[in-house]
């Protein structure tokens, strides 16, 4: 198994380098001069050349890439053009905010999804199964930016139970774990939980149905084990895969939070990306995408490794 883990790690390295290369290239596939958003329209050619030198855009591409990677390895992703603050700090602060809704959404999605999936897989082809399958199809088909809007209409505009946008009564700077702040978290997290819920429900349903059809379950029943005892075995068999699925979902949520954060004006990575795109702040765009993508690669790696450790049946050559 140690060999597998090592190989898996080694395999992740070129992927990470490729991811970094793609993020680096984002600035260069962007139309127009990368400096266009900081230089005034009537900047002299001399000033332009000077700025190109300051930012290093005058060097050959491979050299630029290596310099960029070298600095990134030291935690330096450049400075945001719009705010003149270091990109790394801005992104990490935003990652924390996004993690709050993404983790809460994963927890909600995992609990409800497992419940629906388990009932559906256990009572296969019953009305409960059909209902649960419908819920899971709806979960993955809902455009979450629209769901967010509808929830705001119902719970904020009409019922006035929960705040519509923002991250706390005093803005995002003063987050505390009390009700006054926590209520801002509810609508974004619930909105975000629908996709993992649908996917977990679908996976768990198939897992439970497959496990119940296996011979060892018939064996357990034949030995007179109570139904609760049989279920415990089924849960044990399904848990590693279900956990792996939700672990990967956390990565998708973190990377895909831009739409929901735009709807709820939540100050996370998605909101930051939105700003970066519309202010043409390319270093910020590049940096946030690099950090989010690397996080996703590492999460994949972690889930894979944990699964191998947790589930002794998995043998990977």
């Amino acid at each position: 198994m140690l060999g597998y883990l090592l190989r898996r790690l080694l395999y992740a390295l070129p992927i990470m380098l490729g991811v970094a290369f793609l993020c680096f290239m984002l600035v260069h596939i962007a139309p127009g001069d990368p400096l266009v958003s900081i230089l005034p329209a009537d900047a002299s050619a001399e000033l332009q050349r000077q700025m190109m030198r300051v930012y290093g855009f005058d060097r050959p591409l491979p050299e630029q890439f290596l310099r960029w990677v070298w600095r990134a390895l030291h935690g330096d992703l450049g400075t945001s053009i719009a705010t003149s603050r270091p990109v790394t700090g801005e992104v990490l602060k935003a990652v924390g905010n996004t993690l709050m809704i993404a983790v809460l959404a994963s927890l909600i999605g995992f609990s409800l999804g497992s419940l629906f999936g388990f009932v559906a897989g256990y009572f296969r082809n019953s009305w409960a199964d059909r209902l649960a399958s419908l819920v899971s199809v709806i979960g993955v088909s809902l455009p979450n930016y629209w769901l967010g809007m509808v929830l705001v209409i119902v719970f904020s505009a009409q019922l006035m139970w929960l705040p519509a946008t923002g991250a706390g009564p005093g803005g995002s700077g003063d987050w505390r774990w009390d009700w006054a702040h926590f209520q801002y978290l509810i609508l974004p997290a619930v909105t975000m939980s629908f996709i993992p819920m649908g996917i977990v429900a679908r996976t768990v349903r198939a897992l439970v149905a497959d496990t119940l059809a296996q011979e060892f379950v018939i064996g357990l029943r034949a030995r007179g084990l109570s139904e609760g005892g049989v279920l415990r075995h089924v849960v044990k068999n399904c848990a590693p895969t279900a956990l792996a699925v939700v672990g990967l979902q956390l990565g998708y949520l973190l990377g895909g939070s831009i739409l929901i954060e735009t709807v709820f004006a939540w100050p996370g990575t998605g909101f930051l990306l939105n700003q970066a795109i519309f202010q043409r702040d390319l270093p910020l765009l590049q940096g946030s995408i690099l950090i989010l993508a690397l996080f996703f690669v590492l999460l994949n790696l972690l889930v894979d490794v944990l699964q191998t450790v947790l589930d002794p049946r998995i043998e990977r050559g």
Partner: protein
Amino acid sequence: MTAAIHTSVTPAAPGVVRSRSHLANVLHRLVRNPLAMVSAGIILLLILMAVFAPWIMPHDPFATSMLKRLKPIGTPGLPLGGDELGRDLLSRLILGARLSLFMGIAPVILAFILGGTLGIIAGYAGGWLNTVIMRCIDVLYAFPSVLLAIALSGALGAGITNALVSLTIVFVPQIARIAESVTTAVRRSDYVDAARASGASALLIVRKQVLGNVIGPIFVYATSLISVSMILASGLSFLGLGVKPPEPEWGLMLNTLRTAIYSQPWVAALPGLLIFITSVSFNMLADGLRSAMEVKQ
């Protein structure tokens, strides 16, 4: 995902000697699935609506009017209300079906062609060519799909072409992976060995033996992506990265109506409802198609 390889299946009907092609069998099972048929009906209606939009729109979808701004559903002359510029929402939703469906479906078709070709080449060739193609695909696959779409569209800038390019790039690796694994399985099968032994050229084997067995699974997988693609494409327009105003497109309409959620909430929510209905229908049709094709013998 396990790759199902289809050989022609003949249902054993007692007393009747009948042989149908695989495709006919799949269609036969599909039409007996009520959910899939309802979904197919809704999709057909939406497509007809898009095609005949100019003839069924009650009003000019671009005519603005200060007097008709944000009117509720059921206002005389404005069956589904007026939008933030006083344009007839019903007409805009009808015409919007064109761009919305196009932006959702076209990237999947392009990715089906591109990703399918790459995957089949990688799977059939094997060796270093496989390694080169699949490692590049892996890098793209290492991004969560929403993030990759946003990254590319954000760098390229708003516009229909840029959004199409970004979405196609998002779906190519997913389709290529399926195509590669199915092709590799087919390449190792006995009947391909037999064809090779009888002297068939690589191109002939790909055309006769591989394509027929590989297209089906790739096609089913691609149809399941349309739902995601619809949501993503409208999402890009919702963010201001896809279709530009004043063109009607459901995601963009949802974005411009967002300011109206306090004054006319249900008018504001309508374009999103259409995105949802379309996406759910494509999802259920794809599910039906998958279960119609995956028949375990």
